[in-house]
């Protein structure tokens, strides 16, 4: 399970997500599921940053473990 680091460039994160082979999903504590490879979900993801608590408590889920290598500079591995 991963969370997003705070002190990274989130636009750069989104740009990297576009090159991922598998799905990259933003799952909020409220149950929102945003597929970060879709433009509409990327827009919603950006909107979440107006309320940082949503981002802090959200998970990033990857379907392809290989994508972690591309995204690891932006992700924190957490328990769960």
């Amino acid at each position, binding site marked *: 399970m991963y969370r997003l680091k705070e002190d990274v*460039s*989130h*636009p*750069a994160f*989104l*740009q990297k997500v*576009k090159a991922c082979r598998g799905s990259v999903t933003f799952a*909020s504590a*409220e*149950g*929102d*599921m*945003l597929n970060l490879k879709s*433009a*509409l979900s*990327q*827009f*919603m*993801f*950006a*909107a*979440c*940053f*107006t*309320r940082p608590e*949503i981002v802090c408590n959200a998970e990033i889920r990857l379907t392809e473990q290989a994508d972690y290598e591309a995204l690891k500079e932006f992700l924190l591995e957490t328990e769960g």
Partner: protein
Amino acid sequence: MAENAERNLRLFRELITCTRNLYSWTYDVHFSLVYSNCPDADLMGMLFISMTDNIPPDVDAPMLLSSEFGLSWAVNLERDGSGLPLYYHVIGPAVASKFSIAKAKQAIFNRSDVSDSLVGVLDGLLAKIPSVPISRILEYCIMLHYCVTEEKLSISDILYPGPGAVPREEQDGHTANPHGTWLMEQRLLKLVEDGNLNFRQEKTRLVSGLVPADLGGGDGMRHLKNLVIAFISCCTRAAIRGGLSPETAYLLSDRYIRGVEACAVIADLVELNDSMQEDFIRRVHQSKSDGLSPQIRQCCDYIQIHVEDELSLTSISAAIGYSPTWLSGKFKKEMGISLTQYISQQRMERAKELLRSGNRPIQDIAEALHYKTPSHFGTVFRQYTGISPSEYRMERGKVT
């Protein structure tokens, strides 16, 4: 960055921020941020990144990027000294349509995988984005292009890449000058009435000059569609004044109005508006200069407009109100070819257009133009052009 471009951009950015909180950005060709004067660059930068898949690579023209949320960005590519793409310069985002935002929010609200609280955060985000009339954003596109290239272009040169909702003029204290609008409209219609083939130089002012009231009840797409429909009606009447037969003018008008309703994105609407005006101007020009009688001109127009319909001497004669024998004789005398040959010629021109502009299967094109088999279509096409349809597509077709 080239020295001139850097100096121009520095001044331009300062000028924009004198009146609006509209921010400037520079990205490398991989969309890594190089420069921004936005204090909230992380958040606003994500909005732009979500749109970058719509930007065609290696395009020099100024671009207006629009999202389905009614946000817009002016985008321009800069090349290095050897002509390689170097940077994308961007101005934005700006809210050009609050109605689009409301519609997009509703679409999100209806999604089962998104909570109410997430819909709520959109308001917080949108409150941070300045509202700028679309005509102003288009002007910024042209100015940004000038800063980067020192080339003066017109608004009709702007590209509208990718999907996106049509932005709408928002009230920002700017009041349209009704006399200016009237005069501009009259000038544009005069181009149609005169069949003036130098229309491109004047056309640019349509977008920047006309600042109409809201015609869409708050719906940005409806607003622009209504605007284009109103302009089609004006052009129709101007073309009739210019000598185009009323039957032809109204047939065209109906066709373009149906086309407007089918448009889903700003790019389609802009393209249709441009083609419509050009079509009317060229037809008026042709009617003034080809020396044909009004009856034969009307007959040619009818064939061109209905080229994808079943056409015969009988059906054409009935449609335009002359006897088949009289029409056939007069047509041959004025045109030097038979009516059937002219229909075939027009179908071949249409086939060339379809082969050039898309990937529609050749069999579909043959069927659409009423050839019984693709091989018959191929034979006629080869006689007309000297090459086969597939060879023509390979030589002249554009990559889509």
